């Protein structure tokens, strides 16, 4: 078959600008052929090259005493957790594929992040995810489509994770019209490894054989990276050949075979998964990292379909494949292991020393490109950034024009909103218990997982993913900062100290200066948050072009933080545990209603400035809670987030399995009752303790500069709230009715 003639239209269709095409010619010192142009186009897509965001990412702190592999160095960062053990973790998006085919899109997203982790030599031990959809309530526009996307994505994640046997232990899901037509599917994976067994993705040692292992190559996902680097349009459905189908069964075999292979360090030089841009990316990146060259022959690549062209083979994004550089003379080690696992394994080329990525087909050279320039020297753009013209206006909030809603009613309504409702409908589709490590299952502030580090020796990790995109949309830097704070806060509640952070930057088209401003400010916020909590960024992902014809999504810089709990005794639940325990509020009574769930859901207002964040106060609060937990005096701890104080108290009552009520007395001055009860001021939490300890704990907290006061007592079948002050109020809710509302809401929208 003849390659098409390269025309300006064809260049544009590959997403390359005239300048970029010129640069390709400068690198090659000649015209590229069709295959070479395809290779450049995927490597220089935003998805692979971060050409629009890389300069921003440099702002992140990436070093620290525990960092063993830094962000950007390899497929995932690695953090030292002591005693010779490390963890590799990372978050990655599969937004566009999921918009087109939710089940397969989400499933292959999970497959991809798993490979990023086990390429590092780590055994994946848990998964989490962060999802965004348009509203699913029957009376909302596009509800049926959004429900279909949600069900598809959830079953896709469940299918892949359950089948491969890695538990999905946590995540977050939020709904907003800005995600109509462009859902977000961010998946997180963490794996554990011995620190002396970290694998690298470098091709070194001239003459060393290059092996292809795993699933055969087909035409699926042709140019998926380019697809992810474009706006979603009405025509995106016509891009259907890009749909990749995952096979978790093969991935499980690939995982076990690779881990078995890594037990033979004498045989392994480097390993790299084939994710976005498949063979192209894995060959040029390993060569570039190894300061070497690489030569492969496509005729040797295991193929699923007959008659694939070099262009198709190089750009295919077939799943469940890996590239392994083997030390010459040890070929039998790899072939034997892959035979045992019944997986294709083929010698497809060699490491060279000329710096070129040379692709042959039946001996004839079809592409020859300097690997380093292809992999690492994509053009970098400093995009224009402008503060959105309407941001100041959207931050304005005139509370006098907003009537106070009926408090009793509001709590029920908020608990039934898809954002707050129990996510049981979702997580009970995920196997969250396989690998007998899940100590704190989904439904708490953070997941807690024990990982074996020897015979009956364990370490306890806590992890959470968070982002309140409403805050980010209304003040990006502050919103991103709060995302870090909230995530760290969730960890602190379980007794954990944060170790490191991964992020997934989901934004609209970067060519729009207002979108780029949101990205830039968010990165500033994340970076500041990381420095404040003294945690490095160990990796992440950037997903741009998240917009539908109606406009960009709310900017969503999702963060995932992993922490460690020193002692099993410190693992603390979120929900009320015992009748009679004293309830203590940590932090100030705030009345900030800007950007709150209450305004959105009860008054239909997406506006106001997000609550302020004092980092020093936030950190003091986390440290105080952790030290009280270590003293053994905290029975439960739950942070205050969306919905404020009253929602947090209700969650403590109806979450978990015990369903205990509480009596709360608030003798405080406030200006508005709704702001007082539903405001989302930061740096707050409720903890419970034995009643005889309450006053001592309050004193201890104040000593540490953390405001605290006793709010009431756990017990009974009701949540009772008495508010004194100029006009006293008394409210009570039946715990089991609140539970019913909250627990059944998603089911009712989805069945």
């Amino acid at each position, binding site marked *: 078959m003849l390659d098409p003639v390269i025309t300006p239209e064809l260049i544009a269709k590959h997403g390359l600008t005239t300048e970029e095409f010129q640069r390709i010619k400068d690198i090659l010192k000649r015209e590229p052929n069709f295959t070479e142009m395809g290779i450049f186009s995927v490597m220089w897509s935003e998805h692979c090259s971060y050409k629009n965001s890389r300069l921003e990412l440099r702002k992140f702190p990436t070093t620290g005493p525990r960092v063993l592999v830094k962000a950007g160095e390899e497929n995932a960062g690695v953090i030292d957790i002591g005693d010779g053990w490390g963890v590799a973790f990372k978050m990655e998006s599969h937004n566009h594929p999921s918009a087109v*085919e939710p089940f397969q899109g989400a499933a292959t997203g999970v497959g991809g992040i798993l490979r990023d982790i086990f390429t590092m030599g780590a055994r994946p031990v848990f998964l989490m995810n962060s999802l965004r959809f348009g509203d699913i309530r029957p009376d909302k526009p596009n509800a049926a489509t959004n429900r279909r996307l949600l069900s598809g994505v959830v079953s896709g994640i469940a299918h892949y994770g359950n089948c491969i046997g890695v538990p999905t232990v946590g995540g977050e899901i939020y709904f907003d019209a800005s995600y109509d037509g462009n859902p977000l599917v961010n998946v997180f994976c963490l794996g554990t490894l011995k620190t002396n067994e970290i694998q690298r993705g470098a091709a070194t040692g001239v003459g060393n054989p290059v092996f292809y292992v795993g699933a055969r190559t087909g035409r699926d996902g042709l140019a998926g990276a380019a697809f992810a680097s474009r706006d979603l349009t009405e025509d995106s459905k016509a891009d259907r050949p890009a749909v990749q189908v995952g096979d978790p069964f093969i991935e499980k075999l690939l995982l076990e075979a690779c881990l078995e292979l890594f037990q033979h360090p004498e045989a392994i030089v480097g390993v790299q998964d084939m994710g976005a841009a498949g063979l192209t990316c894995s060959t040029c990146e390993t060569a570039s990292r190894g300061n070497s060259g690489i030569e492969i022959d496509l005729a040797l690549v295991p193929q699923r379909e007959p008659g694939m062209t070099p262009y198709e083979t190089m750009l295919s994004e077939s799943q469940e494949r890996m590239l392994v550089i083997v030390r010459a003379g040890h070929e039998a080690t790899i072939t034997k292991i892959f035979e045992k696992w019944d997986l294709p394994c083929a010698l497809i080329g060699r490491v060279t020393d000329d710096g070129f990525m040379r692709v042959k087909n039946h001996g004839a050279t079809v592409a020859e490109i300097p690997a380093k320039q292809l992999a690492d020297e994509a053009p970098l753009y400093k995009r224009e950034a402008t503060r959105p013209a309407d941001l100041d206006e959207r931050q304005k909030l005139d509370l006098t024009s907003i009537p106070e809603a009926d408090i009793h009613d509001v709590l029920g309504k908020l608990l039934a909103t898809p954002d707050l409702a129990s996510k049981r409908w979702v997580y009970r589709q995920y196997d969250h218990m396989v690998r007998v490590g899940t100590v704190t299952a989904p439904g708490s502030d953070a997941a807690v997982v024990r990982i074996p580090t020897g015979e009956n020796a364990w370490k306890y990790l806590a992890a959470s993913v968070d982002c309140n995109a409403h805050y980010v949309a209304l003040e990006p830097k502050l919103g991103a900062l709060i995302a870090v704070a909230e995530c760290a806060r969730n960890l602190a509640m379980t007794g954990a100290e944060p170790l490191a952070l991964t992020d997934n930057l989901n934004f609209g088209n970067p060519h729009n200066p207002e979108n780029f401003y949101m990205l830039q400010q968010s990165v500033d916020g994340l970076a500041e948050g990381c420095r404040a909590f003294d945690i490095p960024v160990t990796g992440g992902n950037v997903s741009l072009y998240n917009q539908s014809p109606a406009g960009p999504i709310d900017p969503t810089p999702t963060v995932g933080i992993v922490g460690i709990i020193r002692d099993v005794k410190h693992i603390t639940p979120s929900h009320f545990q015992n009748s009679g325990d004293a309830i203590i509020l940590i932090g100030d009574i705030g009345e900030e209603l800007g950007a709150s769930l209450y305004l959105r859901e009860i008054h239909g207002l997406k506006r106001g400035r997000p609550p302020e964040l004092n980092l020093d106060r936030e950190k003091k609060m986390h440290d105080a809670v952790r030290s009280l937990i270590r003293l053994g005096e905290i029975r439960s701890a739950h942070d205050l987030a969306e919905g404020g104080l009253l929602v947090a108290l209700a969650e403590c009552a109806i979450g978990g399995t015990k369903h205990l009520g509480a009596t709360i007395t608030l003798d405080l001055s406030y200006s508005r009752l709704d702001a007082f009860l539903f405001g989302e001021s930061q740096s707050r939490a409720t903890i419970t303790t034995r009643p005889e300890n309450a006053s001592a704990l309050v004193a201890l907290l104040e000593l540490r500069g953390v405001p605290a006061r006793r709010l009431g007592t756990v017990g009974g079948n009701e949540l009772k709230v008495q508010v004194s002050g100029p006009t006293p109020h008394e409210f009570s809710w039946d715990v089991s009715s609140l539970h019913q509302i909250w627990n059944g809401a998603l089911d009712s929208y989805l069945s």
Partner: protein
Amino acid sequence: MIRAQVIVRPRASIFDPQGDAVGRAIQHLGVSKLKQAHVGKFIELELEGDDVEAVRGQLETICKDLLSNPVIEDYVLTINGKEDLTGLAASAAKLAKRSPKAKKEKA
């Protein structure tokens, strides 16, 4: 009564992991001549009444929207195949032809 039969099959260019796994199992069981296997769905519907034309449109919609996923699957709908063998025959022919044709398109 109207009887409709729907065959849903992975589209020719789309990876069919289930077919692959089943194919490997069949080869393992000694059928060495097996080249390929595909697994799809077979759905049978029974409807009241006799007016085929009145439901054909509805059934096509259901095939497209509910029974198959057009992004990755094709379907063949046969209504009252018992009385109207040509329908089923045509479907069979269509299914049988697709694979080689698909390959031709690709080459």
